């Protein structure tokens, strides 16, 4: 079933009797060519690109809960490609280009909205750093524009430009960046994968790996043993737990990141604003709620909820930047588990176990990477070679001394 304006009108006139569930609910087969562990954004995107772009094969996605029940449904929906380092920026720009064509490609409304992202500048040093970043973005084919104070004021006149500690001196804007409907992304990929013949198996938790002589044979699950020629693990915050079942320790700690939504307000923020110095970023959803967040809580956690101190810190950051929101009430606060890597950058690589592949370490930036992560992981699974834009995301880069450390923080996951 293809979605279209014509289809909506036809269904409206015939009592909406023609809509069907958009994916099957199949029983697991005894064996597959490819098993993807994790039915979140990255896992579903991997299955989608594997099935549609790379090869015809028997493919399954195993999800311990329901599809899209993890971070793909818990993030603040921002898409952007404003990174600095050569290991990162081409990859995220590849992702941005996939976002731009995503809805046409998988025929599903993911509400991709290129409303622009503005990173605020408060000091000369920051302006230099953002100029360098903007140039790095342009070199990688992305767009970037450095704004002075008055240009920022024209965009958002109600920001607090004269904060004593962090006066606004300008900004770096990427106009092609924006937001997307996070659940819609998961559903679109799930539907696309299902249509291409992928078995999406829910309520199926991987409880172990069957490994013989260093080669993977299959996975033990809560719904029985499933044989597999290749297994790709894309489980975000649970990476450490799942890979421990294969006897691996990862360069990853799991941390909690909180996100917030206010009550619905009339439209007044038409893009994404980041106030890095104040640990605060915000956009406004189409329903009117302010969607915002700040830093991770900073301690290891699998709890999917955080503590009050960070909530206060984020609220203070918001008030410092935009005092106008002071009377708005918070509707919802929630947390997600971030797979914080040792350099703040992800891993898409083989593992020492033949047939077992890992996609992890996305820290709190995995949503924007969803299309490229799926594409690159599918490329790796299908060809055993890394995708051109993901060559730096090796698992052994810490051992070899090639970290990709955007913030220059070293091996301290809670500071990335």
């Amino acid at each position, binding site marked *: 079933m293809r979605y279209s304006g014509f289809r909506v009108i036809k269904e409206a006139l015939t009592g909406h009797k023609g809509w069907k569930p958009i994916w099957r609910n199949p029983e697991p087969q005894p064996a597959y060519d490819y098993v993807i562990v994790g039915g979140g954004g990255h896992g579903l995107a991997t299955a989608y690109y594997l099935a549609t772009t790379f090869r015809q094969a028997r493919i399954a996605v195993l999800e311990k809960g329901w599809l899209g029940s993890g971070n793909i449904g818990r993030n603040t929906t921002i898409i952007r490609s404003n990174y600095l380092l050569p290991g990162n920026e081409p990859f995220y720009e590849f992702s941005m280009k996939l976002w731009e064509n995503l809805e046409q490609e998988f025929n599903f409304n993911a509400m991709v909205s290129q409303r622009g992202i503005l990173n605020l500048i408060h000091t000369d040093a920051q302006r230099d750093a953002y100029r360098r970043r903007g140039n790095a973005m342009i070199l990688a084919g992305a767009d970037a524009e450095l704004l002075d104070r008055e240009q920022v004021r024209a965009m958002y006149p109600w920001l607090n430009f004269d904060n004593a500690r962090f006066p606004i001196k300008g900004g770096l804007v990427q106009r092609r960046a924006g937001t997307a409907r996070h659940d819609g992304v998961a559903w679109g990929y799930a539907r696309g994968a299902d249509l291409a013949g992928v078995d999406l198996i829910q309520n199926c938790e991987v409880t172990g790996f069957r490994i013989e002589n260093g080669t993977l044979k299959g996975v033990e699950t809560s719904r029985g043993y499933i044989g597999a020629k290749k297994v790709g693990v894309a489980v975000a915050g*649970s990476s*450490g*737990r799942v890979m*421990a079942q294969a006897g691996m*320790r*990862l*360069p*990853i*700690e*799991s941390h909690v990141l909180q996100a917030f939504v206010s009550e619905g307000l009339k439209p007044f923020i038409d893009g994404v604003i980041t106030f890095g110095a104040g640990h605060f970023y915000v956009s406004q959803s189409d329903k009117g709620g302010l969607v915002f967040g700040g830093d991770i809580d*900073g*301690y*290891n*956690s*699998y*709890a999917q909820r955080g*503590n009050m*101190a960070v909530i206060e810190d984020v609220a203070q950051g918001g008030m410092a930047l935009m005092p106008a929101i002071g009377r708005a009430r918070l509707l919802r606060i929630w947390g997600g588990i971030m797979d914080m890597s*040792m350099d703040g950058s992800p891993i898409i690589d083989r593992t020492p176990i033949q047939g077992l592949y890992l996609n992890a370490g996305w820290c709190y930036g995995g949503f924007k990477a969803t299309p490229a992560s799926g594409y690159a992981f599918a490329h790796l699974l299908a060809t055993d070679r890394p995708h051109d834009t993901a060559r730096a995301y090796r698992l052994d880069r*810490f*051992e070899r001394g090639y970290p990709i450390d955007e913030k220059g923080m070293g*091996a*301290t*996951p*809670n500071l990335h």
Partner: protein
Amino acid sequence: MLIPHPLLGLRDAEEFTYLGDASLLDRPDPHAPDAAQQFYEYQHLRDNPAGIHRELWFHEQGDRSWLIVTRNTLTHEILGAELARDAKGAKA
């Protein structure tokens, strides 16, 4: 979260700075033949357990002692705290 400081009693976790897994106390021997491999593992690899976790907290806004806090990462329940120097001393 309230951390039961062995000397100061219950203190708000906000007074502390978090470092990570208490295994960071067990610095490898730099003269070992496989020191490079050991330091790589020490610096970069983590058990990252879902459940009981022994971890280092620095009482930065307090008496500036390092604590080993035992905490459940699934619930944030804090099960105990000891001075890192006592734990380290007991081992040496």
